[in-house]
């Protein structure tokens, strides 16, 4: 995963800084500049110019295409200089050569002091390498000294670029210490930097290619990877000295690599815009073959022309691809990405500089920067693409996590629904069973009790059977387990008690708060109903009361019920020992079962007060 944008910016700075710093430094002040020389042709093996070869004075820098059109072989450059009167600190003098193309040897006062590589084809490629040759003090004469440079090079017609054609730059003779730093800087900029760029692009390219290969839908990455690799190879021309191929084959290789760069660049631009072109898919590989064929057909004499034609064609293709890319992106309602713009801008500038360099002398900085712009841009674009991919992966990961979350919650929902369904099913089964039991009870037990009620001759048995029937009905009600609103329960109780008291001529009074939100469990409802009935029965049967007051209320989370009558009261011995027919014990027992209590206060002649207190437990709290 790449970091944020600031890291990206730091990368840009790190890449550009050395390029600008190393580009050019002034040669020191004590320098002797050599701007002219005498030239003579020679042969590869000779240690001196060919005998009788005409002497031709030239100005430095010299280009063979100008001074010796069509020449191919060895040229000797002779310069003379006065040894500086007093070496500053006894240090070595050095000969600094900005450009010598392609291979060379240096002779001081007739003695060979430096070999720059193979002098016979294939030549060592020193064209982009600045040279620093120390002049041995022992060989220096006082007064006039002669330096001869034996240069082996190619004619302009045989090479694809002016920069690989034979020639020699101006020379400088200076104390070693003064030109050493200059040489190091120039080498770093002209050789070290391209080498680093090649390595970076190679790694990046392989990495991106692998990425694109794995993510087939991101085919532009694979093309970008191939582009970077092709360009890395192409850049090797700047730093690779050792000849490994015949010169013409090497030129062809460079041209084919340029064809590959174009192929991959065009495809990258198209694919990035989401386009696929059959013409490009087929035409570009065919074009690479055409390059080989065209080059061979043109022959060595016209290889430079062939190269320049191909350069123009390839540049045009890339330009067309850029236009197509931008149009497609615009059509999609987006703006071309900054990385693409950077790449296009850098290539355009680089191509323009290199084209111009073929015809005119470029400012030194521009000449140096021209081949460096594109690799830098490619590295940056590669990083940008990797960053985009990283973001896309991150977004995909987020999407995946969101999906996972959704799936999890959906699964939870299903599970919950299933559980609810099961609960519902269980409830339905219980309900059905309850109804069946209730129906059985009513049909069998109820019918028999009813028959007893209406056929028994004994009033006592009739009453007992009637009470049993009422009990049975209440039990069935308790079976439901359905909770009862306290207000509803109070309504039921009031209606029953007030009308029963009224039937026996006892004045009933009922006090209850309005609108209670509490609920009672089925069990509490049933048991409280029994306690109330028992109390009412006692009043009707035993108390001789004329008045009964019932007070209901909520206090301290308890449901409180007070039943008071003005009857005879209960004799202590009845309450304590016998409790015959009064059901006081069962009332207390029922209250205890509900975690409540039932207090009976009574005295003969003072009436009876029954205080029932039941906790409205958490389960019975307002729902």
């Amino acid at each position: 995963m790449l970091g944020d944008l600031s890291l990206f910016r730091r990368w840009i700075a790190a890449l550009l800084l050395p390029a600008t710093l190393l580009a050019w430094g002034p040669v020191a002040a004590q320098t002797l500049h050599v701007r002219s020389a005498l030239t003579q042709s020679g042969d590869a093996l000779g240690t001196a110019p060919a005998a009788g070869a005409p002497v031709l004075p030239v100005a430095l820098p010299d280009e063979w295409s100008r001074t010796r059109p069509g020449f191919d072989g060895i040229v000797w450059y002779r310069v003379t200089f006065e040894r500086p009167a007093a070496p500053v600190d006894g240090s070595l003098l050095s000969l600094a050569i900005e450009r010598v193309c392609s291979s060379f040897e240096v002779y001081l006062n007739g003695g060979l002091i430096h070999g720059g590589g193979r002098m016979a084809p294939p030549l060592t490629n020193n064209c982009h390498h600045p040279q620093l040759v120390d002049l041995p003090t022992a060989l220096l004469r006082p007064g006039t000294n002669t330096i001869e440079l034996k240069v082996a090079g190619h004619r302009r017609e045989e090479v694809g670029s002016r920069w690989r054609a034979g020639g020699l730059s101006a020379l400088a003779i200076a104390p070693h210490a003064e030109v050493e730093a200059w040489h190091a800087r120039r080498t770093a900029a002209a050789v070290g930097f391209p080498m680093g760029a090649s390595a970076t692009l190679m790694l990046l390219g392989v990495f991106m290619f692998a990425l694109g290969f794995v993510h087939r839908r991101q085919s532009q990455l694979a093309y970008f990877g191939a582009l970077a690799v092709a360009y890395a190879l192409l850049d090797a021309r700047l730093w690779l000295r050792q000849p490994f191929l015949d010169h013409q084959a090497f030129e062809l290789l460079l041209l084919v690599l340029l064809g590959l760069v174009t192929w991959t660049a065009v495809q990258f631009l198209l694919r990035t815009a989401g386009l696929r072109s059959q013409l490009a898919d087929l035409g570009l590989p065919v074009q690479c073959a055409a390059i080989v064929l065209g080059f061979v057909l043109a022959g060595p004499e016209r290889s430079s022309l062939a190269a320049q034609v191909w350069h123009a064609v390839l540049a045009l293709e890339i330009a067309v691809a850029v236009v197509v890319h931008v149009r497609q992106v615009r059509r999609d309602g987006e703006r071309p990405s900054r990385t693409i713009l950077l790449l296009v801008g850098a290539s355009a500038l680089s191509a323009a500089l290199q084209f111009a360099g073929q015809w005119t002398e470029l400012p030194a900085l521009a000449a140096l920067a021209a081949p460096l712009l594109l690799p830098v841009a490619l590295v940056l674009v590669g990083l940008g693409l990797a960053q985009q991919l990283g973001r896309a992966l991150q977004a995909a990961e987020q999407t995946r996590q969101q999906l996972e979350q959704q799936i999890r919650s959906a699964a939870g929902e299903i599970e919950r629904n299933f559980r609810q369904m099961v609960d519902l099913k269980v409830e339905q089964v219980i309900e059905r069973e309850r109804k069946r039991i209730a129906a059985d009870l009513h049909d069998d037990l109820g019918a028999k009790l009813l028959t007893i009620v209406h056929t028994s001759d004994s009033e006592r048995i009739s009453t007992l059977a009637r009470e049993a029937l009422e009990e049975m009905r209440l039990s069935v009600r308790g079976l439901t387990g359905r909770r009862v609103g306290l207000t509803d329960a109070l309504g039921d109780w009031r209606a029953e008690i007030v009308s029963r008291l009224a039937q026996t001529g006892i004045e009933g009074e009922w006090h209850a708060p309005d609108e209670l939100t509490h609920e009672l469990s089925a069990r509490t409802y049933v048991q409280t109903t029994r306690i109330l009935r028992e109390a009412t029965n006692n009043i009707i049967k035993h108390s001789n009361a004329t008045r009964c007051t019932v007070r209901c209320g909520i206090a301290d989370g308890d449901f409180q019920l007070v039943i008071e009558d003005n009857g005879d009261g209960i004799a202590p011995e009845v309450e304590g020992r016998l409790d015959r027919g009064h059901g006081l014990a069962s009332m207390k027992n029922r209250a205890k079962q509900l975690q409540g209590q039932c207090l009976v206060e009574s005295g003969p002649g003072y009436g009876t007060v029954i205080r029932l207190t039941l906790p409205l437990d958490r389960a019975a709290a307002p729902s």
Partner: protein
Amino acid sequence: MIAAGAPIRFRSSSPGAQMKTILLLEDLPEIRAWMRNLVLQVFPGATIHESARVQDALGVVAAVRLDLALVDLGLPDGSGVGVVARLRDLQPEAQSVVVTIHDDDEHLFPALQAGAFGYILKEQARELITEQLQRISQGEPPLSPSIARRVMAYFTEKAKPRANPSPLPNVSLTERESEVLLRVAKGYTLPEIGVQLGLSRHTIADYVKQIYRKLNVSSRAEAALEAQRLGLFG
């Protein structure tokens, strides 16, 4: 539970309305005999058609012009609710009274919806049943708190605005009728409510009758609509 709405002390000296032909639907022979005895005491000289099964009773309803039907709910071959509904269809002026051992609204409410005009709990003492029967025949049906709550819930549910307005007749309770229902639900007896509202016993009884009538009308319309829907889609 004993039916609420029984006045504290009500002794009717006037005989019940003229009930000449009566259907008695009861499966237990002893109880049926006991009931016949009781009915003859309340409505002397009445003709009593006895049935032990729903099928027999339906035959009687179709064949005989009835003034009153005393209908048990849990019968060997079905529920007495069907008999109540058929009687309401065929002889709207005849009165149905449910006589049952079920006191819960789950059993009673459907019978009331079908057109029953009150209910009597079988196990009550003879004199209580006599009194209730007389009162019902005079147009004073009983109404218990749980039934009152059920009726209130029914009309509240019906009054809810629906997405598709139903073509049902807009039967709704008046404010006074709702007031009476609310007080019954709280456990007040009908005479108590009469005192509270400053109304006579008869006026309160009229309200209760209206409530029963509206419940029946609305339920029948609903049932008809449901039948039509099933007929259309079934």
